[in-house]
């Protein structure tokens, strides 16, 4: 293996470990924020808002969710493509390449989910129902991010050898 390829692989694995740690933090915050709540709706949000603990956890969730999304989209995905000798381009180009490898199921879903960050900020989104919708969607997309990390681990087992 050429040295350059080894360096690229090492960078990818370093980023993968960082993303896995960030994913664990997001899982913990999600658990503390939502607990047993399966159906997040407007009335539930209205009840919770104003509780300083909830407000802090909501802010933490938004920050951790956005950071994991950024790390995967802006760093890990380009690093994966470089480590496997693929071209890199815009996020859209990169996601389309990953779709071909079956590491990403739905490119539009990934692009849409980039819009969630502004919608997870209570000071900005004052309507409890919109905030509930945004949290529901962010929880769903978190699972997509976690599962994608798992797929990267499987896909790169050959790189590690």
């Amino acid at each position, binding site marked *: 293996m050429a040295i350059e390829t080894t360096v690229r692989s090492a960078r990818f694995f370093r980023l993968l470990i960082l993303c896995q740690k960030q994913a664990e933090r997001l899982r913990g915050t999600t658990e503390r924020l939502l607990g047993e709540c399966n159906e997040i709706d407007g009335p539930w949000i209205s009840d919770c808002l104003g509780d300083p603990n909830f407000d802090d956890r909501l802010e933490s969730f938004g920050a951790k969710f956005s950071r994991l999304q950024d790390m995967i989209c802006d760093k890990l995905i380009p690093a994966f493509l470089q480590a496997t000798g693929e071209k890199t381009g*815009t*996020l*859209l180009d990169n996601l389309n390449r990953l779709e071909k490898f079956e590491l990403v199921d739905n490119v*539009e*879903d990934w*692009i*849409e*989910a*980039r*819009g*969630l960050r*502004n*919608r997870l900020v209570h000071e*900005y989104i*004052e*309507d409890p*129902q*919109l905030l509930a*919708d*945004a949290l529901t*969607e962010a929880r769903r997309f978190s699972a997509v991010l976690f599962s994608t990390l798992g797929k990267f681990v499987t896909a790169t087992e050959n790189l590690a050898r």
Partner: protein
Amino acid sequence: MRLTDREIHIIKQKTAECFGAEAAVLLFGSRVDDGARGGDIDLYIELPAHADKVFARSMRLYGTLQIRLGLQRIDIVTHVAGQALASIHREARATGVRL
């Protein structure tokens, strides 16, 4: 206003596709200011009282515009007629320019 004719056309067309012809879209924030530079594309969308699935439609519009306009920073704020106005809605109405 710092949007090209093409960008305005795409925003109006995709807003109508996602929310229907009754939706009115305004540009607000720094892009209204011809003297400023850069900045997010802040869109305010006024919807009729019978609008449904507002969140899901907003997400779809965001994704479509990202793809069509080339991954820009876009922020979409919606307001359904008859609902309370938040401060962001008041700001958008006061300073926005209808596309």
